[in-house]
């Protein structure tokens, strides 16, 4: 449990840059007349964070992939890859950074707050960018804050 509270009123999302957005149509369509049955897809994401304590800035990079769960050799299912950079201004960032000799750790609560903002925004970006493609009906699922926070919990 963190003692310091994030000054959420002064938290700022300065910039969002979509550095990579690719959707591959594949050979088969999802939900067209020729394909019946249920499709299984994997939506996976990974987060990278870098900090600039002096300027109280954080750069969060979110990679989102939508992939078929099972790859069929004859037919290739549609897939998508997105890479989105978020630039945050975090007031009093230094209070939430813990530096060891080898690593820099960010307070899990702050990381979860920023991760939530990034992930929610990415859901909208991915949905919008997938319009007009075979993945037009796909919305990456909502994730509970606790799930995102647990990514940043330091091992005991």
């Amino acid at each position, binding site marked *: 449990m963190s003692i310091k509270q994030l000054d959420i009123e002064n938290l700022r999302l300065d910039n969002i840059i979509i550095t990579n957005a690719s959707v591959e149509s594949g050979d088969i369509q999802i939900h067209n007349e020729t394909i019946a049955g249920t499709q299984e*897809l994997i939506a*996976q994401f990974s987060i990278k964070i870098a900090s600039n*304590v*002096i300027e109280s800035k954080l750069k969060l990079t979110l990679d989102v992939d939508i992939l078929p769960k099972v790859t069929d050799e004859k037919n290739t299912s549609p897939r998508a890859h997105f890479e989105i950079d978020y630039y945050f201004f975090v007031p009093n960032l230094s209070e939430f950074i813990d530096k060891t000799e080898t690593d*820099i750790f960010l307070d899990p609560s702050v990381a979860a707050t920023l991760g939530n903002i990034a992930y929610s925004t990415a859901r909208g970006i991915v949905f919008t960018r997938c319009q007009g493609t075979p993945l037009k009906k796909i919305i990456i699922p909502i994730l509970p804050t606790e*799930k995102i926070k647990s*990514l*940043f919990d330091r091992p005991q």
Partner: protein
Amino acid sequence: MKFQKFNKIVQEAAPEIKEEVRLAMDILDRLHELLEKKFDGKQKALAEKMHVSEAVVSKWLSGTQNFTISTLAKLSTAFGESIINVSTDSSEHSSYELVTIPRSQQASIITVNESGAMQCVQTEYRSSSIKKTNNFTVQEAI
């Protein structure tokens, strides 16, 4: 009478002078705020951290100092926080240090039926190998 004179002088001051005074006062406020926060308001502690005399610190905090960029940079480093922020669009060009994330990848399996209805059936952590580059970790999904 004295106030009337003072107000008249302020009103007649050139805009650049007014701006200079405003900037100087803002910087002074910020310095006092950071001194209180980081060094319990002790000028001596800041002087020791910056390897300068207390007299120099006292002069900085008097409000009459015309700071150079070099001094502001040294003060920012000593406080661990910036003194002034300049609005630019260059966030992406700042220098960043990598933050370690114990488990940075998560996956959800979604099923989509013929009608387009979606269901998230499973959410799990993914194994990944992490290698460090200059700025970021590179996640390689297994």
